[in-house]
C-alpha cells in the first residue's frame, strides 16, 4: 500500500503536467520500477546466467566456468535435437490447430449464440472450473479413461465396436495431444471470446444485408476480426506446448520426447550446461515464433 501512496499522486496527472515539476517526470519511472525489478531479477538475470552457463564445461559431476561451444555443437549437431524439435513443433502445430478450432467454435457459440450476458458468464465459468484444478490431476485422470481396460475401451468392446481394446488411446502421441488440448484449450477460448464480444453486431447484419450466408459472414467478417484474439491465444498455446514436459512424459508413457523434456532429463542428470544450451535454443525459437505473431497483431492496441 505504501508504494501506491507514494506514486499514485501522479496517476492522473498526464494532462496537467507542468514543466519544472521533476516529480511528474519521475513518477512513471517509479511506478514502472517494481515491474522492472521483479522481471529484471527473476527473468532477465536468470536468462543471462543461463546464456553464460551454456558455454561452460561439465562432466558427470559438476560444471566448470569456461568458454566452450560444444554444448551448442552437440545440441545442434545431433539428429536427436532436430528430431525432438520437429516432434515438439509437431505437437505444437497439432495442438494449435485443434485448440484454435475448438476454442473458436466454443467462443463463437458463447459470444454469438448465447443471448443473455448472465448465461454467457455461467457457461464461460463452467468451462473455467476444470482449469482451476490441479493440472497434474487433470492429466493423470485421462489414464483410467483411455487405458487398455479403461472406460473408453470397455465401452467400445462392450458395444461390439471393436473386438480388442484400442491400443493407441493411451501412451501415444494421440494421448499427448488429447491431454494438451484438454489442458490448454481455455487459453484459446478466453482471448477469442474477448475479441468476439467486441465485434459490433451491426457488422454481422450489414453482411447479411449484403447477401452473405452464415458461412460467408463467418469467413468474411467474424474470422478476420477475431484474428487478434486468435493470435493472443496462439501465443499462449504455442508457448505452453513448446515448454511442456510433463504431459509428453506421462501421456506418451515415456515413448515420446519434447524439447523441454530433453532439457529436463539433462537437468535431472545434472548436465546443466547442456540444458542451458538447449534452453537458449528453445528460447530463441519461441521468441522468434512469438515475434512473428506480434508482427501480425499489435497486442498493445488490441488489448
Amino acid at each position: 500500500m505504501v508504494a501506491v501512496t507514494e506514486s499514485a499522486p501522479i496517476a492522473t496527472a498526464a494532462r496537467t503536467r507542468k514543466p519544472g515539476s521533476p516529480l511528474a517526470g519521475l513518477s512513471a519511472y517509479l511506478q514502472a520500477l517494481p515491474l522492472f525489478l521483479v522481471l529484471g531479477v527473476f527473468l532477465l538475470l536468470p536468462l543471462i546466467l543461463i546464456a553464460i552457463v551454456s558455454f561452460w564445461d561439465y562432466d558427470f559431476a559438476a560444471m566448470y566456468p569456461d568458454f566452450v561451444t560444444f554444448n551448442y555443437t552437440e545440441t545442434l549437431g545431433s539428429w536427436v535435437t532436430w528430431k525432438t524439435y520437429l516432434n515438439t513443433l509437431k505437437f505444437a502445430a497439432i495442438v494449435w490447430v485443434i485448440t484454435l478450432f475448438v476454442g473458436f467454435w466454443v467462443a463463437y457459440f458463447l459470444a454469438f449464440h448465447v443471448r443473455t450476458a448472465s448465461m454467457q458468464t455461467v457457461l464461460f465459468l463452467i468451462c473455467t472450473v476444470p482449469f482451476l484444478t490441479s493440472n497434474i490431476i487433470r492429466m493423470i485422470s485421462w489414464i483410467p479413461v483411455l487405458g487398455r481396460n479403461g472406460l473408453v475401451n470397455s465401452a467400445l468392446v462392450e458395444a461390439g465396436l471393436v473386438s480388442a481394446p484400442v491400443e493407441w488411446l493411451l501412451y501415444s502421441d494421440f494421448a499427448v495431444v488429447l491431454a494438451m488440448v484438454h489442458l490448454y484449450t481455455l487459453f484459446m477460448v478466453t482471448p477469442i471470446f474477448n475479441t468476439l464480444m467486441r465485434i459490433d453486431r451491426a457488422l454481422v447484419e450489414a453482411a447479411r444485408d449484403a447477401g452473405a450466408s452464415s458461412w460467408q459472414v463467418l469467413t468474411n467478417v467474424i474470422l478476420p476480426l477475431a484474428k487478434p484474439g486468435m493470435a493472443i491465444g496462439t501465443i499462449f498455446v504455442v508457448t505452453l506446448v513448446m515448454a511442456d514436459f510433463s504431459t509428453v512424459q506421462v501421456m506418451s508413457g515415456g515413448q515420446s520426447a519434447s524439447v523441454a523434456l530433453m532439457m529436463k532429463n539433462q537437468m535431472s542428470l545434472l548436465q546443466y550446461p547442456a540444458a542451458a544450451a538447449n534452453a537458449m535454443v528453445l528460447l530463441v525459437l519461441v521468441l522468434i515464433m512469438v515475434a512473428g505473431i506480434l508482427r501480425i497483431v499489435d497486442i498493445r492496441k488490441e488489448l
Partner: protein
Amino acid sequence: MTKAAEIDIASVSKIYGQSTAVHAISLKIPAGTYCCLLGPSGCGKTSTLRMIAGHESISSGDIRLGNTVVTDLPPARRGTAMMFQSYALFPHLDLVDNVAFSLKMKGVDKDERRQKAMDMLRLMQLEAYATRRPAQLSGGQQQRVALARALITDPEALLLDEPLSALDPFLKIRMRAELKRLQTSLGITFVHVTHSQEEAMALADLIVVMNDGRIEQAAAPRVVFERPATAFVARFMGDHNVISGRAASSTNGAVTLDVVNGGQFTAQGAPIEAGQPVDIAVRTDRVRIAPTGVPGLGFTGIVSNIEYRGSTVKLSIDGAGIEDFTAILDDAAFFEQTIKVGDAVPLSWGEADAIVLGRIPI
C-alpha cells in the same frame, strides 16, 4: 437502377419477450417515396425498419415489398438494402472491398466486382480513397461509403437508420441534400429513420410520426406541419403550441374550449360534445404581439424566456393557464419593440391558425 417497390406493412407487431415495441402498425409507402420515420427515442422506429429489412423477426402481421410477401425472407432476398446508424463499415477491408462485399458474396469474380465497386466509389467521389480503410475517413466520407455499399446491391428500397446522427451540423446539412438528390435521381423508395423533425421535413415525401410503438400520423410534411393529427404530433413537430382544455361549445366548424384555471379559446374543427377533453394547436409563427380583436384568438401573458434565433426570435410566455406558450417573431418585428423577460405582452393569432387536434385510440 430505376425499379422501386411499394412497401406495405400490414398489422405488424414486434414483441421483445414480455414487452411490445411495435403495436400492430399498418402503413403503405408508395414506390419511389422518400419516407421518414420520426419519433422520440424508444418509439419503435428502429424496430420497424429492421423488420422491413429482415434483421428482426416479425412477431405478427405481414410486410409486402412490391408483389412479394417478404415476412419470412432473409434480408438479402428482400430487395432492400440497409444503411446502418454507425455505418457498420467492415474495419478490416478497404473501401473497394467494403463496397464490393455483396458482389463477393454473390460470387462475382474479383476483377468485375472491383470494377463495379470503383464505379460506385467514383459516383460518390471517393475514388481517391479506394484503398483506405474506413478508420482513415471522416464521418461524411464514411457515410458515402456506407451508401455506396448499400446501393451497389441495386435495391428496390433503401433503409436508413439515423444516417446523419453522427455528423456535425455543418456536414449534416450537406449530406442531407446529397441524400435527397440521390433518391430523386435513383427513383427508389427510401425509408429513413430520424428523430429530427427538421431532417424529416427537409427530406420526406411522407412523414410517419410514431409514438410508443404506434403511428400517430402518416402524411406529407406539409400536412403533418399544418394539420398535425394529434397533440403528440403537434408538440413533437415543435412549431405548434398545444392548448388542452374541455370543450365548451361547438358552432360552424369551430370549437370553443375552456382551459382549467385559464382562458377560453376558439379553434377550427369538427364539433365536439361539451365537457369532452380537447386539444387545439396554434402555430407558433403566426402569433403576433398585438391585442386580439376576436375573443378566443389570443391572450395576455408574461414573457419567461427570449431566445434569439437569427432571422427570428422565440418568446416563451406564461398566462391564461398555459405554460411555455411559444411565439416566433420575425427579428425585425421583434427588435422594433423592446420586450424583456417579465414583461406582460398581448398575443393574438388568426382564425385559421388554431385547429382542433384529434386523439388516436390506444
